[in-house]
């Protein structure tokens, strides 16, 4: 038995969930679409980051490849230089000439007040030259002492035949009065040539000429 004393116009209207269902459905679809887009964007972002890293790496490798010709040229220059040095060393070692005892004798015989500016030894020309300077007062005596010491030195004499004064005169160095000197060094000839020369000299001496 059903009866309702409340007239239809006085009955409360309750909101039905049904009208909101399309909106809720739309909202759900939107949320799903957004989630899908977000997932897709995440995947794309990860791919982009991966390719960007690869791109950076490739650019770095490309830069290194572009530097290779320069490095190759430098390496070739170094190689040539090394070849030259090796050739020089080979030539020196093949000639059998070692200047170390000569330089040691020069260094040990040099008086305190003299300063050397150049020491050149040309074995092919078989000459050498020592240039230097000293003060005006004592240089003459000390150069003479230096020459005597060289000529008397055992190590010097093994390779060089004589040390001769070329000149010793006044000069200016940076506005100060000094005396410059030059000493000519003469190498010994190869043993056979030297023997011939000595014999010849002896013969000349014997002849009294």
């Amino acid at each position, binding site marked *: 038995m059903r009866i309702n*004393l409340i007239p239809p116009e006085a009955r409360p209207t309750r909101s039905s969930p049904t009208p909101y269902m399309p909106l809720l459905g739309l909202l759900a679809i939107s949320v799903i679409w957004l989630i899908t887009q977000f997932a897709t964007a995440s995947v794309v972002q990860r791919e982009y980051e991966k390719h960007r890293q690869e791109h950076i790496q490739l650019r770095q490798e490309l830069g290194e490849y572009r530097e290779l010709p320069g490095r190759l040229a430098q390496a070739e220059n170094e190689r040539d230089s090394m070849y030259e040095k090796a050739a020089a060393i080979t030539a020196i070692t093949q000639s059998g000439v070692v200047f170390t005892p000569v330089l040691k004798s020069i260094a040990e015989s040099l008086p305190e007040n003299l300063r050397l500016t150049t020491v050149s030894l040309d074995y092919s020309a078989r000459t050498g030259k020592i240039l230097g300077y000293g003060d005006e007062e004592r240089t003459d005596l000390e150069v003479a002492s230096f020459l005597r010491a060289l000529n008397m030195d055992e190590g010097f004499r093994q390779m060089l035949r004589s040390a001769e004064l070329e000149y010793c005169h006044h000069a200016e160095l940076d506005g100060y009065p000094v005396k410059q000197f030059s000493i000519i060094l003469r190498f010994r000839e190869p043993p056979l040539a030297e023997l011939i020369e000595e014999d010849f000299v002896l013969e000349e001496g014997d002849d009294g000429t």
Partner: protein
Amino acid sequence: MLGRTKKSPKVLGIHVGHNALTMANVLLKDDVVEVLELFRHSFSREPGGWPAEEVSVLLRKARKKINLKSEVTRLTVSSDLAPSNYFIMPPLDESQLDNAVRLKLENKLGDSAGEICHQAVISERHGERCRVFACSISAQKQRLILDSFMDSNCPVDAMEVEGVSVTNLMVRAGLDQTYPVAVMQIAPEWSEMYIVARKKLTLSRPILKLGTSHLTADEDEEPEQADGPSERYLDRIVREANKTLDYFEIELLSPAVRRLFLLGESADRSELTDFLARRLELEVNVLDTNDAIEDHTGKFEPTVHGLAVAAAAGGLTYAD
């Protein structure tokens, strides 16, 4: 298909009795009623009066104990708030019923009938005549009652009278018979007798305790006894019940009522059952819903909470 399909709506049933407010939250599963929450609180009011402020306080108290926000809220009120009317009419179509009842009410109530809300159903057919049950309430009182619930954020969707709820409770409990049965609601100040036949409310009759109404003031009425209705009040109930049964059987040419069910707080008193059975010469039982209503609260008493649950459950969906 979009939208929700509610197969098990939660319904709040409210019973405004003579001296108590009862609420029941029920779950309707097909034709099974499950009681989820119950609330009952006594309040005092004059017959026909509506103490709006006291009800508001009561509803605020109720809100803390029961969920007032249900999908549907149904209210049942006692006949002092919404009196029942019976009219004998020629056979009518349902479309003609409303206008016919309106005319009857205007003839009965005069000018005030224009402010009356009413609804009617045909309860009996006797040959060329039919008996119509129509409950009514003044629009002003209806607004007052509905506003009280609306103020507590508990809008009421449907309002019926106790007699309809009693009928629905009897039908749901399977207590309606092929022959008419009577139901008596006994309250300390007010009682009412209903006769249900063929799943319809055929007759209802309020029985006031003398001295409780300004209409029937009797200062000599003896005080209420602590252990139940007074003997004089019971004598009056028996007398009026016999008159009602005689009227039903003789004037309405109806089959005799054989059983009486008791409803109300005092119904389960054994001496009352025996007294009425002896004096009315009927089989008297306390109304029991048996297994028809599933109680999840552990507090459900058919005689106390039955009308609130019946209001929530409403009528069954059979073709009546």
